[in-house]
């Protein structure tokens, strides 16, 4: 398999595409882009933990789409057009004029709600794809050194966070096996809090002992190079985005 693109390339592409999608405002092209991105993520899969974030972002996108559609149908200003079906109208007090709950659902109203939902979901999917294609640690390594202090906080957060989910599941299991069926917040939160605190302290002391923060400057063991490929990818995406915006 070819070497992956530079992490920054991927993130800039995601941002450019997102701008393009919003400017163009076309649900079909947005869906096509999601399809292409999904294919890319599928080809590039390597079983790493952050890889799952794409599937997660799709799920979040679909949830938003569903909510947006339901809300769009129920509430809002009527759009005239082909009548699909009629919902009972809810009586609202007179001091809430202009808002209507229920009523006639037209094809136009349904499609405009769906359309907006798809655009939002596409943006989330684009950023989900960028996250899933680059390790968060790798991204930190290419961030400029003057925000490195923030970076190191993120290292602790990103390494403790996935642990948190695993630990929570383990503790929950242990308690279920003790015969405590009801999920009590205190019984999970306290062991979890104790564990993550001591973990963070251990990580901090390990970093301390290994000389972190002693030298102001920091060298790079294996710098991630910026290649011609990155230039070409960026150029192509920029052209695409410009085309989408100017149309």
């Amino acid at each position, binding site marked *: 398999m070819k070497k992956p693109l530079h992490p920054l390339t991927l993130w800039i592409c995601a941002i450019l595409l997102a701008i393009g999608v919003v400017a163009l405002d076309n649900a079909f092209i947005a869906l096509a882009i999601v399809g292409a991105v999904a294919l890319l993520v599928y080809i590039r899969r390597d079983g*790493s*933990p952050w890889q799952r974030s794409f599937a997660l972002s799709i799920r979040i996108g679909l949830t938003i789409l569903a909510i947006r559609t339901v809300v769009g149908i129920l509430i809002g200003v009527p759009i005239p057009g082909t009548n699909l079906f009629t919902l009972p109208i809810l009586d609202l007090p007179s001091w809430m004029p202009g808002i209507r709950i229920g009523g006639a659902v037209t094809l136009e109203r349904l499609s405009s709600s769906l359309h907006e939902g798809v655009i939002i979901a596409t943006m989330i999917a684009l950023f989900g794809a960028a996250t899933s294609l680059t*390790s968060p*640690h790798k991204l930190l390594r290419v961030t400029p050194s003057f925000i490195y202090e923030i970076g190191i906080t993120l*290292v602790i957060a990103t*390494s403790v966070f996935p642990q948190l989910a695993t630990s929570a599941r*383990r*503790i929950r*299991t*242990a*308690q279920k*096996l*003790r*015969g*405590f*069926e009801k999920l009590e917040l*205190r*019984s*999970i939160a*306290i*062991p979890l809090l*104790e*564990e993550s605190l001591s*973990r963070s302290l*251990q*990580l*901090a*002391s*390990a*970093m*301390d*002992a*290994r*000389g*972190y*923060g*002693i*030298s102001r*400057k*920091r*060298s*790079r*063991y*294996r*710098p991630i190079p910026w290649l011609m490929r990155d230039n070409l990818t960026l150029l192509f995406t920029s052209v695409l985005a410009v085309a989408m915006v100017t149309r």
Partner: protein
Amino acid sequence: MITFSNVSLIYPQSTKTILEDLSFQIEEGEMVLVMGETGSGKSSLLRLINGLVPHHTGGILAGDISVDGISTRTVKPGSLAHLVGIVGQNPINGFVTDIVEEELAFSMEALNFAPDVMRKRVEEVLDLLSLSALRNRSIATLSGGEQQRLAIGAALVMHPKVLVLDEPTSALDPIAAEEVLSVLHRLVHDLSVTVIIAEHRLERVIQFVDRIIFIEGNGDTSIGTADEILKNSDLVPPIVKLARALNLSEIGTSVREVRRQTEDVRSKEYVRPSNTPTHTSTAIEISKVSHSYSGKTALNGVSASINHGEIVAIMGRNGAGKSTLLHSIVGLHSPQAGEIRVDGVDPTTLKGAERRKSIGYVPQEPSDLLFASTVSEECALADRSNDLTPGSTASLLNRLVPDISTHAHPNDLSEGQRLALVLSIVLSGNPEVLVLDEPTRGLDYRAKNLFAIALREYATQFNRPVLLATHDVELVAELADRVLFLAEGEIVADGTTLDVLLSSPAFAPQVAKVMSPKPWLTVSDVVHAIEGQS
């Protein structure tokens, strides 16, 4: 290389002095063991060496510690990174990056080493610790032994003169532990690295160390060669117990030494003791169980039956499927193929009080079960949930560890006390079956002994089965009636403890190694045989 002069250490809000007026010197290329009961201050002593105590933890330090002429008082721990490498108890918690190579380079990056120096040193360490094949692997996918070697490597890239390790083998199976220890041995002998190591399982390390620092827990500390210290200590490995029981003139620390002295014992003929009574009624029935996680087979057609009153140890290397098997037995998940019956019931269907009465389960992290703020509150909760008269659990606990403070926070207890607390909570449900996952990690010999007695009592008194997964060969030799040996998700050996342990050199206990080919596993086996003969 390391000089402690008149060092005393006390933590604020603690009545106990950890160390008092401790003075010693450690030379270059020495390997020193720090031993003592759990909670006696071994980790504190280790972390004093690079100044993590008190710079990182607080505490009042008197006296002076210097490493290679630099006083830890004047510099931060990080400034000693090129001099002292430290490997914590749980290496996974100390990893900063997610790829093996990057982890090795982390310290050097932080200290702004030139890229070509970094490349060279990373290669060196990869070769030295045979990690080359793993260089691009994600750290999360490494086995316990590999992680431990990586943690040692990450410290070694700085070319430290001193390497400090806190219980480096406690989570490892015997074979992985041997790998790690032989690496340390090589560092001491080939590169003259000074190694300071804390460890409970003396049987694993005792043959490698030059001197022992014994922290006695009341502030007293003694330093000397293994022979001097072990002569008068309670915390001794089985090999020393054997030497005492046989009244040998010298205390040997290696199997070879003691073998030479016991030739006459082995040369005699002994009556084989009559077999222990066999347990016949089945309590747990496992038939053709298979299970896999995301395409990886964890269990493959495992069948076994465990009888009432039997203590069965499940052994095998890290990742052999021990935990998965235990999880299936306690009903955490239903196996993808085959079935399990505990007293005729499918364990996945058990709930609430019914579960507490059927299966008692002590998880790998005993503290997962604890959430009250004091020991007595925790006991009261157990009484309430099992409809016992108030105080029942507390009295059970008191029998296991008489000196426990009931007002202490469970988190402040020593490992042994915490395990005892969890064990009494689980036993308060009066379960028909007891299942334990790696119960003796971090326990000293005394705590382990108490624990073994409690389990033995439970099994014989109520005629109920005990099932435990463990790496602790000596515990298995003392305690278990039967051993199931797992490899790659399959049972490769199922037989009496004697047969299984004697047939595998890596998993044989110390006494068996000394007394081979005689079929003895423990000191009491030897004593019984000799008494029976005379």
